[in-house]
């Protein structure tokens, strides 16, 4: 096994070998999840707390299911509505939770770096479920697993990431992961939604979608958030769909066997045509959701193994962690 980290805070600190380890284990969990009886006891006796400072339905459900299938005791903290509103700081919330001795903390927060900060204050394994515009590592891992299963490999592919890249943690984590795995990356979007300095990251930048999609093997669409649709970053929803919405005409520029991905939730008719999203020959959007549970199971399994090993060493050495 080559995965030794204590937390999963981002893709940035993972090596290609560690990424493969996670994906290989996730493949096995995909098989498990397709059986009628989906339980293992990898996390039996461990406590998992999901702490979502930002509202989420899909990711939280995915983490909850993953934990339950691994046999963990899972608790969802509705922090978005509670103590933070009363003025408690992030660190105090973390310390309070830490005192309850959880083993796995799954955290989403609206500020970049907030999960790193929290991880430095607790002594359990922390999984970043999305922090601001920074990273969303399990999304990138589930995307990688989806690509690997659809394309048979995760190297030397032409991959286009399209849409609101500036505000997307999904885009950042994917950019880092797919770059580490030696793919050719293209970023497509209006200049107002492309972050500065990305050209230095070894990606090609396109503001014309047809040119950007030419011959790509994978098309990753990003969600355009409602609050950015009117006037501020783009002129209007309909102009955005016209120039950057994925429809059959634009997709025709991609390789004939190109797959279409979307992290969800989709805005049909804004960034993606419903017909494309539902095309079972092209769209792998439902597969992404399925892979999500498996990848999260793999990550939590690996982190739990590391946590047990660390506690074992500490117990042998007489140190309390």
């Amino acid at each position, binding site marked *: 096994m080559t995965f030794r980290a204590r937390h999963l805070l981002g893709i940035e600190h993972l090596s290609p070998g560690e990424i493969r380890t996670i994906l290989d284990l996730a493949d096995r969990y995909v098989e498990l999840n397709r059986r009628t009886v989906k339980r293992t006891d990898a996390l039996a006796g461990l406590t998992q707390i999901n702490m979502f400072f930002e509202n989420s339905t899909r990711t939280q459900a995915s983490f909850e299911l993953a934990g339950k299938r691994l046999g963990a005791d899972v608790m969802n903290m509705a922090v978005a509505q509670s103590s933070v509103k009363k003025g408690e*700081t992030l660190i105090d919330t973390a310390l309070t939770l830490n005192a309850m001795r959880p083993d796995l903390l799954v955290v989403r927060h609206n500020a970049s770096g907030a999960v790193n900060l929290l991880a430095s204050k607790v002594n359990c394994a922390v999984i970043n479920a999305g922090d601001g515009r920074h990273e969303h590592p399990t999304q990138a891992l589930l995307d990688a697993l989806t690509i690997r299963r659809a394309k048979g490999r995760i190297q030397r592919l032409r991959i286009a990431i399209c849409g609101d890249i500036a505000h997307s943690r999904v885009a950042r984590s994917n950019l880092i992961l797919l770059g580490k795995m030696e793919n050719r990356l293209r970023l497509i979007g209006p200049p107002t939604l492309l972050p500065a300095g990305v050209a230095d990251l070894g990606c090609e930048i396109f503001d014309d979608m047809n040119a950007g999609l030419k011959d790509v093997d994978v098309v990753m669409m990003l969600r355009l958030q409602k609050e950015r649709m009117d006037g501020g970053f783009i002129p209007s929803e309909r102009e955005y769909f016209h120039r950057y919405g994925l429809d059959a005409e634009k997709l025709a520029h991609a390789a004939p066997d190109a797959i279409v991905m979307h992290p969800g939730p989709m805005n049909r008719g804004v960034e993606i045509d419903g017909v494309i999203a539902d095309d079972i020959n092209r769209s792998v959007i439902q597969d992404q959701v399925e892979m999500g549970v498996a990848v999260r199971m793999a990550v939590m399994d690996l982190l739990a193994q590391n946590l047990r090993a660390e506690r074992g060493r500490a117990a042998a050495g007489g140190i309390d962690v």
Partner: protein
Amino acid sequence: MSADPTQGLFFRDALLVDPEALRESRGHLLVEGGRIAAIGPDLTPPEGARVIDCAGRPLAPGIVDLGVKIGEPGERHRESFGTAGRAAAAGGVTTIIARPDTEPAIDTPEVLEFVTRRAAASAPVRIRHMAALTKGRAGREMTEIGFLLDAGAVAFTDCDRVVTDTKVLSRALAYARSLDALVIGHPQEPGLSKGAAATSGKFASLRGLPAVSPMAERMGLDRDIGLIEMTGARYHADQVTCARTLPALERAKRNGLRVTAGVSIHHLTLNEFDVGDYRTFFKLTPPLRAEEDRLAMVEAVASGLIDVICSMHTPADEESKRLPFEEAAAGAVGLETMLPAALRLHHAGQVGLARLFRAMSYAPAQLLGLEQGRLAAGAPADLVLFDPDVPFAMDRFALRSKSKNTPFDGQMMQGKVIATFVGGLCVFGEV
């Protein structure tokens, strides 16, 4: 503050750092009556004078730190005149130029008199005050510039709040010109920099931090230069930190406008990558820049295009820094770390000692019309004796400031103050 006039102070065999003549030479220096009485290689100590053997170590005019935030009034839990004064003395700063971004702002002669009295009673170094340019630093109405000058204000600034209304700023500049008051601006286009926590580029994009283009600083200075040309006011840009701002500054100076510029010691010694894993002690206003920008600033200090180095001392309590990066307070303390940090440029062979002290002592004093900052007969004996070579590991809890938010925590530094003198009196160190 004055020394015992009966007893002189004789510095034997120092490396005399003369920032006015940009010269460093071995020699002796005699202090009498709180002032420098004589300087030269052939002096002998007069009878009864205390002799300090400097063993060839540098003796320079004490630092005049332009733009220090002290929490009085309003935020004494962050810094008081007493703690700031002790930190300054330990850092070789003999004159603090205090900022008016207090709570409430120093915008009336009454508040100014209050802080002047408080400062004189509690600090071992000299403290001079700047006043706000507009009432409440709100950018709407100018303050009583005339009365404030009479009450001792040395410059007028709204600190990091940009006066966005050009009509208001042009009137304030024109009025200030009639009194020959110095106006200090913060060159920044606030529309672009709003909400920014980092400088736009690869680093900020990877960290997912809201960022501002360096162009915002150039645009801010361009606007201010236009208004200076229009009004003829005396203007100092508090911090110039980007390479692309420099041509505009150079052009304005060449055109004879009365424009000067400063840079904080942090922007001369750190870059955006130092933020690393969202370390909030590296969150500053303006944010740390790219390495190319830092090098351009070092070069601009060496050439004299940038006139002043300041610490931009901004105390922040632990709570305001222990937050996610975007939400954390900006600013760093610098009174005690400014000299060892500046000596990094000396040790790297980039800026000589005389040039450093020109930017830290002579230039700010000249700008504010103070008699400090000179190593010459007749000048006040505000002096710092230091060892530029002694290495140490920076420990933030050893700082005398009430707030410990230094980005240099844990770093290796080189150079320590041996003793600091204000008006011939030793306020720090043992000699």
